[in-house]
């Protein structure tokens, strides 16, 4: 089998980047974002990207880095709070944005990756989201047609992968990484650790290796926390 492991993010992206392409990215806020791959895309200077991601990072973190460098022409996202540069470009008409309900976004990626061209959902019926979309009644309820998303590449962050590309995520860092992985024609994964093939219990693999085309070890990570909330220990 061809080696899926690349020495670094730039090498893993070599030959894949072109102006105007669509990139699906995993992550929820700053949790589980493919930060090494985002940095390599920043360094590549590729332009006019269409980014499909639940969020757009925050100022100069995550996809916020590619916003600051103005490499993103369009964002397809569900929520973009906490990002001043995004706000400035969006209000100034420099950045196109398509807001998609979070569940519809996850399902559009899942569907795209599963060869499903479109699906009907009740989410968004009677709202701006439904405008211009086919409406259809099923069992007395109205649904709208949403399209699957196929991306040119997907970039994801996993916890551990084996040499075959079988991958596991950690806690809530799974989020959009799984559906995004399946939606890309080529999926590049960055992980914290590569383990020998056979280390994982096959019953416990989250993302089968067929979805992972290229991978890198991105460690060491300095994972960012957006809102640190704690409780006090009760006195002994």
């Amino acid at each position: 089998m061809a080696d899926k492991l690349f020495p670094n993010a730039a090498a893993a992206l070599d030959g894949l980047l072109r102006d105007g392409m669509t990139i699906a990215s995993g992550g929820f806020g700053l949790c589980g974002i493919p930060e090494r791959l985002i940095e390599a895309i920043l360094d590549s200077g590729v332009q006019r990207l269409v980014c499909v991601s639940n969020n757009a990072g925050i100022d100069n973190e995550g996809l916020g880095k590619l916003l600051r460098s103005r490499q993103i022409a369009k964002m397809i996202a569900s929520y973009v709070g906490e990002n001043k540069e995004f706000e400035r470009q969006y209000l100034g008409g420099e950045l196109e944005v398509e807001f998609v309900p979070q569940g519809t976004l996850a399902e559009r990626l899942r569907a795209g990756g599963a060869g499903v061209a479109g699906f009907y959902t009740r989410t968004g019926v009677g709202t701006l989201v439904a405008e211009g979309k086919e409406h259809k009644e099923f069992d007395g309820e109205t649904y709208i047609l949403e399209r699957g998303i196929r991306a040119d590449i997907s970039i994801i962050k996993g916890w551990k992968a084996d040499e075959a590309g079988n991958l596991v995520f950690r806690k809530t860092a799974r989020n959009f990484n799984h559906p995004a992985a399946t939606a890309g024609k080529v999926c590049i994964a960055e992980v914290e650790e590569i383990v020998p093939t056979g280390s994982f219990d096959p019953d416990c693999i989250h993302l089968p290796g067929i979805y992972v085309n290229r991978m890198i070890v991105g460690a060491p990570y300095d994972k960012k926390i957006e809102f640190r909330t704690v409780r006090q220990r009760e006195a002994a």
Partner: protein
Amino acid sequence: MPWTRDQMAARAARELKDGYYVNLGIGIPTLVANNIPPGMTVTLQSENGMLGIGPFPYEGEEDADLVNAGKQTISPLPSTSFFSSADSFAMIRGGHIDLTVLGAMEISEKGDIANWMIPGKMVKGMGGAMDLVAGVKRIIVVMEHTSKHGEPKFIPECTLPLTGKNVVDMIVTDLCVFQRPDHDSPFRLIELAPGATAEEVAAKTTAHYLPL
């Protein structure tokens, strides 16, 4: 004395039932978690891919890979499970979540809800709100009875872009509770906060509703 934010959350928490799976929105709805009746098992869902949300972690035990939908650090429970966003919203959209408590900017007398954008102001996106109101079995809105400028928020027709049409089952405000038995019926005033009167509610509500 109208209900405080915490008392509004406590009133919404009285709608919980043992064994419920529940999704709580950001703001006052989050306070519902502190008001779960003792002895009752309620499992909280976080739309970023977690069932069984525990309390905030002890200092020093925060984990960047373990956050709730508000991106706050949290802790797991023995019953916790993790899954992808696609699975998370399959739960929500597939009608598997029993109850959601959300905030709102406007509610119409027909049960429409607007809580995601104000035209002309910065739009941040709807997040998972449209999925929740379309898919969860019962929708409770917790909101101040009037806006900061004293304008009614329970009104004949929403003026803001909708999050969902004909979806709300119950409204808890600082003054009272409105409820309807199904989505073809009008709301009825069912309860007043201590000190609030039906006349005060009527004066601050432009929506049509059935009296107490």
